[in-house]
């Protein structure tokens, strides 16, 4: 039985708890969060122990691994403390808030030899995984242009996500999903050019449009935004055009199940949730892979370096938007 400690008790912790509950060989042993661990445990994993402090959780629980689900700027401290104790880690994306933080995590992982996986869950979303498989199989020839979209509306405060210093805003927190996915499909990024705009409470509505040039000559366009317009649903879309074909996916076109009733019933579409009509959703697949790697010692499919490289593209995009010039990921650090 792989015993997992959750560090963080926010929205992602609930998603992880749901997914881990579906894995036969894994269990959530404990949850740490400064304020809400006990409430979270009562609601989602009554068998787990609640801690206010993650280092106490590390020291007092018998654990195999931890899932780091805390605000981005805390990843460095939470991950390095786990690595120091030899605990395997799955860490939410983005890897860290700064390149220094990412380097510290990479060094700790390498020195401790722990199993580490960056949770770039889009790679495990079935539509995205299938699109990558189609490209790799040569179905569309050589890719030339790829476009992605990831966006949602919200209402009121989103807590630490609103704080650029903690989350890095929409480019580091949301666009990083698609930067990682496109790196996985198309290879390394040569340069990015980003335009960005924001408004509302100190820019909590955050809109970014990034044009990418890949080292193989392909061109990308990553649209990522969150806006304080509550009626806008979560949307994601992907299009890859090659010289011999084309694949496209748009969540708005996918309606395998619709329900209408007396109460307000939405058709399930949000991948963060457990009601998609899939035997295994992306989070289930991601955690199953991680648990498998913890058990067997196999190399996880998304490495610490993948996390670092994808995050570097996002930081280059942030810098491009500030400077009004194209920026190479190399310019923001190795």
């Amino acid at each position, binding site marked *: 039985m792989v015993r997992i400690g959750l560090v963080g008790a926010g929205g992602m912790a609930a998603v992880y708890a749901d997914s881990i509950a579906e894995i036969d060989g894994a269990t959530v042993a404990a949850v740490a969060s400064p304020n809400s661990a006990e409430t979270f445990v009562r609601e989602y994993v009554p068998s787990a122990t609640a801690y206010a402090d993650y280092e106490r959780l590390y020291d007092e629980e018998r654990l195999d691994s931890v899932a780091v689900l805390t605000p981005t700027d805390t990843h460095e401290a939470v991950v390095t403390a786990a690595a120091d104790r030899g605990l395997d880690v799955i860490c939410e994306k983005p890897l860290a808030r700064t390149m220094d933080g990412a380097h510290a995590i990479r060094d700790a992982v390498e020195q401790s030899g722990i199993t580490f996986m960056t949770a770039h869950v889009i790679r495990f979303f079935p539509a995205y995984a299938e699109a990558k498989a189609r490209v790799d199989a040569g179905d569309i020839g*050589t890719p030339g242009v790829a476009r992605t979209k990831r966006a949602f509306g919200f209402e009121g405060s989103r807590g630490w996500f609103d704080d650029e210093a903690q989350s890095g805003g929409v480019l580091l927190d949301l666009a990083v999903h698609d930067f990682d996915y496109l790196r996985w499909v198309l290879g390394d990024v040569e340069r990015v050019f980003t335009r960005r*705009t924001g408004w509302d409470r100190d820019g909590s509505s955050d809109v970014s*449009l990034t*044009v990418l040039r890949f080292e193989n000559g392909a*061109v990308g366009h990553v*649209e990522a935004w969150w806006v304080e317009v509550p009626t*806008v649903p979560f949307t994601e879309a992907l299009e890859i055009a090659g010289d011999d*074909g084309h694949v496209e996916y748009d969540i708005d076109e996918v309606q395998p199940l619709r329900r209408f009733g007396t109460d307000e019933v939405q058709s399930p579409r949000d991948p963060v949730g457990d009601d998609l009509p899939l035997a295994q959703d992306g989070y289930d697949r991601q955690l199953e892979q991680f648990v498998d790697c913890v058990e067997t010692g196999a190399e996880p499919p998304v490495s610490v370096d993948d996390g670092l490289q994808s995050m570097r593209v996002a930081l280059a995009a942030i810098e491009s938007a500030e400077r009004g010039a*194209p920026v190479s990921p190399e310019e923001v650090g190795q």
Partner: protein
Amino acid sequence: MTVRLGVLSTAHQHANTYAAVITALEDAELVAVADEDADRGQSFADSHDIEYGSVDEVLGRIDAAVVCAANANHGNWVREAAWAGVDVLCEKPLTPTAEEANELVTTCKSAGVTLGVAMPVRFSEPIRQAKAAFDDGAIGDLQAIVGTNLLQTMAAETWFTDPDLSGGGAIMDHSVHVVDLARWFTGQEVTEVYTETGTRFSDIEVEDIDVLSMELADGTIFTHDGSWRQPDEWDFWGDVTLRLLGTDGVIEVDCFDQTLTRTQDTADDPGIDSVYWGTDINAGLLRDFVSAVRDGRSPAITGTDGVREVRVVEAAYESAERDEPVAVEYE
């Protein structure tokens, strides 16, 4: 009064589209065609049951002309029409260079003829409803625009891929429609362009990737993808989409989403495709032009619009050359 129309050059396939639309208009009549290729012109005349003639013969018989030449030849035909006192609707882009486009505007103005540019997307009903909602303040203050105007990959053996005749590839051909929409919605000019481009889809002499990142004078951010990149087997010729993000809402338009899904087992070209059944945008364009000619007013999209849009295209090429954002120069 019935407005007598002629077609000047049929190099662009839209000549056939426009001819069919004009034939169906009640207050217009398609009279004659001139062409730099006599065989092509004669065959066009035969299929639309009109006269083929020399440029002078044709201009002598019509009130207004539609120029469907290759981009580099637009100027010659527009000048001929202007000198003959004939109003002109010119296929887009107005010309490959802003300098020549500007000169055409001056020539038409001093000749006292109307010059319009064929931007039919402004007459898309989904676009018009979006514009009305936008003007009503439905999305608050505009912050960002995302457009696409994709096309299937381009065959090598057309004038579109001959830089001497086209002036360029996808950037020249497929940037101006969405740039025109952005200008029309906002009343703002594009002030800066950054370009990523290349030739990755067809073995052609011009670029087939057209990915632009722009800014409008009021700071609105704006990207556009006008690449010639959809496969031959795609279900439609391409698309025009526009997404407007504002402080209070979002408007999304897919101009050609009103389609039937058609599957044919035994046709010449079997397979599955989409058949558009929405309102004919070209009818709107030509109705506006014909009524402008009759009433002596400017058409919805003027030569000046054409010049400004060509300036954006020129800046886009300059950005591709310099690998950096380029300011768009207006006079």
